[in-house]
C-alpha cells in the first residue's frame, strides 16, 4: 500500500474515532462538562443586575437534584447546611448580593463512576477568588452525582478536611 493511501486511511480512522467519542461521550466526560458548567454558573462579575443575578442563581440550581444536600464546614467558619434547590437558589442570591464578584474553578477533578453507571463520586479542588479579597479560597470537596432524566445531577456535596 502506498504512503498517501495509508495516511488517508489513518486520517479517516482518526476522524471516525473522534466522531464516535463526540457522539457517545463517556459518563466521566459528561460529568466533567457538568462540573465546568457549575463553575461557570457560580462565577459572576461586579456589573450584574438583579435579573442577571436571579437567572444565574436559577441556572446554578439546575445542576443539582431537587433533594440535594450540601454540607460546608470550613476551618474558622460556622458550618452551613443546605437542602434542596430552593435553598441553593436563595443562598446564591444572598451571596451575590453580599460580594462584588466571584470566580470559581475546579482545577483538579477525580471521577469514579460506579459499576451501575448511574451514580458517581467526584473528588475535586474548589478554587474561588472573591473580588476585593487578597486570598484565594481553596477547599477539597466531594460530590455525589446521579444520572437522572438523562442528566448527571449533583445529589450531595460535602467539604473534606485535607489535613485533619
Amino acid at each position, binding site marked *: 500500500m502506498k504512503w498517501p493511501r495509508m495516511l488517508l486511511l489513518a486520517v479517516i480512522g482518526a476522524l471516525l474515532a473522534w466522531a464516535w467519542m463526540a457522539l457517545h461521550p463517556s459518563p466521566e466526560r459528561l460529568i466533567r462538562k457538568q462540573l465546568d458548567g457549575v463553575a461557570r454558573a457560580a462565577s459572576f462579575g461586579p456589573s450584574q443586575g438583579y435579573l442577571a443575578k436571579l437567572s444565574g442563581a436559577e441556572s446554578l440550581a439546575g445542576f443539582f437534584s431537587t433533594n440535594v444536600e450540601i454540607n460546608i464546614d470550613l*476551618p*474558622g467558619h460556622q458550618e452551613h447546611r443546605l437542602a434542596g434547590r430552593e435553598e441553593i437558589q436563595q443562598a446564591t442570591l444572598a451571596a451575590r448580593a453580599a460580594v462584588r464578584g466571584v470566580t470559581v474553578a475546579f*482545577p*483538579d*477533578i*477525580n471521577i469514579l463512576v460506579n459499576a451501575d453507571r448511574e451514580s458517581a463520586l467526584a*473528588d*475535586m*479542588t474548589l*478554587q474561588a477568588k472573591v473580588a476585593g479579597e487578597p*486570598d*484565594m479560597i*481553596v*477547599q*477539597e470537596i466531594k460530590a455525589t452525582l446521579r444520572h437522572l432524566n438523562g442528566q448527571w445531577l449533583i445529589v450531595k456535596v460535602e467539604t473534606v*478536611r*485535607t*489535613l*485533619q
Partner: protein
Amino acid sequence: MIETQSGTGHGSRWRILAVGRNPKRTLARAAILAVVSVVVFKFVLLPVRVEGASMAPTYSDHSVNFVNRLSYLWHPPRRGDVVGIRLTPPSANGWSAPHIMYLKRIIGLPGEAISFVNGRVQVNGQTLDEPYEKGPCDWRMAPVTLGPNEYFFVGDNRTMSKEEHVFGKAERARIVGKALL
C-alpha cells in the same frame, strides 16, 4: 559595491545568530528543548506560586518555587522537609500532577504522637527544635497519634491564629514532592 557586501555580511550574521549555521540542526535542538521542558515542568519539577502567609517568613506571599516529584523515590519524607500536599486525592490510574496544593512543613512522622504545648511542638512528649520558627506562638493541641502511613504538616507562620491556619495529618499518598528552593 563595498557597502552592498557589508550589508549582506551583516544580514547573514543576524541569520546565523537567529537560526545558527545549520537551521535544520537548530530546529531539531529547539524541538528537543521544548519537549524536555514540557516533560520536566509538567511531570517532575512543578512550578508553584505561594499564595497566603501560612509559610511566612520562610516563603512570602506570591513567591515562586518548584515541587520536585522525584525527591522521595529513594527515601521516605523527612521531618523538616517543606512539601507540596495535594487537595484532591491521587487518581488510581495515573501520575497526574495537581494544579493546586498546600505547601507545608513535615513535623510528624508515621507512628509519632504530635502535640502543641505553649506554642511549642512536642513529638512523643519531647519538644522539637525548630530553628525556622521566629515569631511568638501560643497554640495548644492535645496529642494526635499518627497512623503507619501518616505524616503531620504545619506551616511556619505560627503567629497567626490556630483556627485560621490549615494544618494536621494526611496520608503519604497526598505528598506530591519536596519544595526545591
